């Protein structure tokens, strides 16, 4: 069980970091979610893994499991859920205001992203449909 939980946390973290490093906002949001899932599992595991043990005092318990990490995970879930909603809204707003979903700011972005930033640079998009700008 330890191996399963540990590798699940590891794989999710690795996938999350990979996705966070992508250039567009949608994969980054997915990556952030994966990272928070991994974090929540990790926090849960800090109370040690055990099966069938009560967290609160009872007369016939052979042993106990630490209830505090579970309370921490609840807090972490609530906060990360809210934060994911915030980042989705902000990413959508940025997409609507600038006409593209690149994470980079214009100027320090890839050539493709700089080209897409027609709205910010005050250029009209090329006549072709789709909102893509002409070559600078």
């Amino acid at each position, binding site marked *: 069980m330890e191996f399963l939980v540990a590798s699940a946390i590891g794989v999710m973290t690795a996938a999350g970091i990979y996705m966070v490093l992508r250039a567009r906002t949608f994969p*980054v949001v997915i990556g*952030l979610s994966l990272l928070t899932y991994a974090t929540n599992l990790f926090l849960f595991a800090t109370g040690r893994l055990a099966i069938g043990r009560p967290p609160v005092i009872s007369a016939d318990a052979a042993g106990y499991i630490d209830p505090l990490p579970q309370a921490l995970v609840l807090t*972490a879930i609530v*906060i990360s859920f809210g*934060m994911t909603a915030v980042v989705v809204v902000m990413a959508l707003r940025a997409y609507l*205001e600038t006409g593209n979903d690149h994470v980079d700011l214009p100027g320090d972005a890839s050539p493709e992203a700089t080209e897409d930033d027609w709205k910010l640079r005050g250029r009209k998009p090329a006549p072709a449909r789709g909102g893509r700008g002409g070559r600078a």
Partner: protein
Amino acid sequence: MNHLLILPILLPAVVGALLVLAARHDSVLARSFAVASTVLMLGIAVALLVLASDGQVRSYALGAWPAPFGIVLALDRLSALMLVLTAVLGLGVLLYAIGGWDQRGKHFHPLFQFELMGINGAFLTGDFFNLFVFFEILLIASYGLMVHGGGGLRVKAGVQYVITNLVGSSVFLIAVGMIYSVTGTLNMADLARIVPQVPAADQALLQTGAVLLLLVFAVKAALVPLHFWLPGTYANAPGPVAALFAIMTKVGAYSIIRLYVLAFGADAGEAAWLAAPWLLPAGLLTLVLGMTGVLAARSLGQMASFAVIGSMGMLLATVAVFTPQATSAALYYLIHSTLAAGALFLVADLVAERRGAQRDRFAAAPRIAQGGLVGGLFFVAAIAMTGMPPLSGFIGKLLVLDGVRASAHATWFWALILSTSLIAIVGFSRAGSFVFWKAYALPAAPAPGYRPDGALSFVAVGGLLACLVLLTAFAGPVHAWLELAAAQLYAPAGYIDAVLGTAQGVR
């Protein structure tokens, strides 16, 4: 238990909620509530400062649950100082915003109150999971403030800021989990008691957790190589918000001072002075990079951002010496750099408002309205930020140079601080002559679309600069008080006894 301790958190929480519910459509009501709340907060902070000046650490157990089982707030000299600093800066920024800027988007005032609540909470809490929660509160409010007024570029910079901080929050939780799994406590005082007893087999986990936590605080404090989010965020944030954010980097610095002196200090056994070998080189590197950035900046806002990075580097490198003398110097510099950075961002906004399409970029633009006054304010703020006499930046740098004399790395400090000061002076002079002097070569024409704002914005900037003058005039007494604060930090027994005192009776 003194209920005054919880008021700096409770007051903005209640007022913020009231502002959302009752004063949403009435700007006069919202402004009066916000100002009243911030003035009251300043009063409470000063009262707490007076209270803490007797050298006793006070703790407040929320819900009367004794530490380490419940969450506690703890007030010592350092916390009280940070509360006063927050309230002073907050009041200055609020007065500036009321000059008309706060009407550009909705909900500025509630977000502002929640921001202050998060910052105050982070300074008061004695529990490091609770510290995470207050970090989140201040971050959530800052996300809203950061994109206040909107605009494509600003929202895009805001997305980057949110992403960086969400990753930071994940790392924070992982670090907290690691430390908890070894020590079984979330209370800072209890952690300080348990860390020396951690067996050698668990040391690796404990120290990894502690360094990860340092990493998170370094992100907040914009330490190289984790500074990359700051220039984009601060330069694209609205001026008053950037000025308020000057205190947010200090929340990271405060957390480093608090946790790594208290729990990983002299008594921590194998984990003693865990932060020093990482913090010192990173701090010095940050100083160099920040001040070089001042020279490379393309706008006033960007320049102020890099000046903030540089000052954080100097502050944290000095903290990393971990002696009471160096820490008291660092605290003096902390007060100074917060107020100076706040004033500088507000001046940059004054300029940007008056220059139309050129904003605060270093490009030729006609003379601006009230150019003499704005230029004078910039001159004073620049003197403060670069650390030239006669203002408090100079005294701060002298104290730092003197405070690190006993350190093995004193040569590095002296060489880097003195050379970067020169670079910063060159950078600021270039900016000043570009923005204020070169304008005289162009035909005078009022920038289009400018409407003169009231005297309030000048009062706000002048007030912050006046605080710097006061800090210079009363440098002696202030530094003597800060030496006591540093001595209190390096004698953690008092803090631990005050927080855990009630629990000892239970056991």
